[in-house]
């Protein structure tokens, strides 16, 4: 029996977005450790609720009632948050870092959420982006947008060369090769004097169309915005583009092909899918996103060094994707907030974060393998499927 189509109310999602913005503001400004802890717990509870069947379905219906309006509103809320934080260096740095890390995780999500290719070298591809930006910006006069594109491209090319043997091998090859790459990448940088050895390289600030991001924005004599406003805004734009791209990817024949290849290689090849090519495509695409994010991050922080691009950091990226929910691009952002911001706000976690997040991933895989916000069935368009 067909259900009768009934337009769902928009208000739950409409109400939720400003709430999220407010939560972000309060969370970033919370000082006392107990406040942070309570806010974090509330956040996890909210994510869990949103991941539950009933609340999740209600929010989903609500979102589908007006997807483009709500999408724009989400962007506006995020932009407003950046504006409100305009004088707070640290909070803005956090916002930009979260957005750039989330961009990397969007890429990882394509790689192992869709194509099933593990990538344990996310931080290394992030690092390739950063080092490319450092070298190109210091030694060439290329426009910085071109440098960002080159950083993404180089990261993608290195990645595809690494997994090219996938055309002949199967199974665990990608896992093995990325973990070896993650370990050797750091060693390689440390012994390479041209790339600055263990100290790394300085990276010039980003400048687009003559506008230098590293200059504070002076409004008048009394008002001056932090220069991180520009980076946070730019990161927001990049993340939004990445999110739309990955969303569209999933809601197309490409996403379907990647799913087919991941779930059953044998059946996929019998139905004509070029298994290895899809995997390599997904792997390269993911690394392009990581490379671009790494370049912006390097330009924002002003330096790149081998110690930032270790296997342990790569595993942090992996943790974010598993925690959020494999294959759900929308889950990347809340998971990144938890994994990146929490150790910065709760100082006592900082030292134990690798331990903590590894343990959390083990628990997730044992008890809630779909993650906090599980992926739902593919919906090619908002109106797709039953009412």
């Amino acid at each position, binding site marked *: 029996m067909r259900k009768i189509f009934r337009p769902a109310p928009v208000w739950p999602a409409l109400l939720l977005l400003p709430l999220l913005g407010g939560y972000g503001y309060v969370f970033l400004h919370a000082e006392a450790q107990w406040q942070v802890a309570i806010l974090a717990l509330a956040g996890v509870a909210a994510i869990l609720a949103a991941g539950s069947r009933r609340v999740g379905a209600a929010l989903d219906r609500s979102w589908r009632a007006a997807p483009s309006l709500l999408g724009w509103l989400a962007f506006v809320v995020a932009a407003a948050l950046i504006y409100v934080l305009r004088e707070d260096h640290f909070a803005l740095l956090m916002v930009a870092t979260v957005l750039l890390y989330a961009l990397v995780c969007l890429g990882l999500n394509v790689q192992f959420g869709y194509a099933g290719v593990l990538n344990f070298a996310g931080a290394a591809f992030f690092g390739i982006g950063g080092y490319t930006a450092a070298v190109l910006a210091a030694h060439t006069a290329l426009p910085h947008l071109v440098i960002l594109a080159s950083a993404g491209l180089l990261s993608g090319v290195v990645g595809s060369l690494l997994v090219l043997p996938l055309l002949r091998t199967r199974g665990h090859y990608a896992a093995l090769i990325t973990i070896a790459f993650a370990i050797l990448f750091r060693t390689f940088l440390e012994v390479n004097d041209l790339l600055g050895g263990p100290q790394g390289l300085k990276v010039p600030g980003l400048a687009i169309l003559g506008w230098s991001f590293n200059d504070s924005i002076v409004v008048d004599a009394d008002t001056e915005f932090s220069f991180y406003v520009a980076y946070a805004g730019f990161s927001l734009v990049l993340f939004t583009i990445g999110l739309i791209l990955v969303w569209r990817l999933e809601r*197309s024949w490409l996403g379907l092909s990647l799913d087919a290849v991941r779930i059953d290689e044998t059946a996929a090849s*019998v139905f004509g899918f070029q298994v290895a090519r899809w995997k390599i495509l997904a792997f390269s695409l993911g690394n392009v996103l990581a490379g671009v994010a790494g370049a912006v991050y390097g330009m924002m922080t002003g330096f790149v060094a081998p110690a930032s691009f270790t296997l342990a950091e790569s595993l942090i990226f992996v943790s974010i994707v598993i925690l959020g929910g494999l294959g759900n691009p929308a889950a990347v952002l809340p998971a990144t907030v938890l994994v990146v911001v929490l150790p910065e706000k709760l100082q006592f976690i900082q030292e134990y974060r690798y331990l903590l997040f590894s343990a959390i991933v083990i628990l997730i895989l044992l008890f809630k393998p779909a993650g906090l916000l599980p992926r739902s069935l593919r919906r090619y*368009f908002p109106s797709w499927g039953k009412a």
Partner: protein
Amino acid sequence: MNVLLDCRGLTVRFGGLTALNGLDLTLKHGETLGLIGPNGSGKTTFFNALTGLYRLVAGRVRFGGREMTGASPQDLYDAGIARTFQRSRLCLTLSVFDNLMIGNHRRLSRGLAFNLLRRRAFEQELREHQARSRMLLETFHPSLPDRLYDPAGELGMIDRRRVEVCRALIGEPRLLLLDEPSAGMTHEETHELMEDILATRARQPGLSIILIEHEMGVIERVSDRCAVLNFGEKICEGSYASVVADARVQEAYLGSE
């Protein structure tokens, strides 16, 4: 010449074990061949060899007048061979529609720009395939189109089997390989599915089918011709009646006295 498939001396080995030994088999356009034989006689191995999953040690395959020996699974699919699996291999976490589209792979526009940027054109193509899927499912069971957006894992056994056959059919293959479609189903369900397959064949007169089946009633009802395998070799071939009467076949199934 209306031979669709011509296999000569197909041989597959696993280590020391010869799973398929010099198998000769031909199939005409529009013909349905029943493939029978005891467990482990090489029937599924034959399908796996024919779809490019196993490598041939010897022998050659011509399909649709083209030399296809040693072709990859992808090339064989492109040439028009589609199959089902003995153990259901639907993607249970994907919707019924997505599963059908996997079988429809050859008709999907796979360009990056088309999929990511030209959403209007994509939607149009999507709607066409949606309509076709509904029609195909409808012919199998009137309730199936309503389940188009459900995860395949939520379907019952017989509906899964139907969807699996639909997945193989939707790409309009020239040769359909059915690997024991009745496995795990009740007598009535098997009967229903057979009627579905007969109806499909009636609608697509050019479609050739090779059917692996243990239910002899099904073989009798559906096939134009039968071939019997034992220990990887063809021991007998002919009409259903002549095959079941053959002493070698009885020996293969019952063992020699």
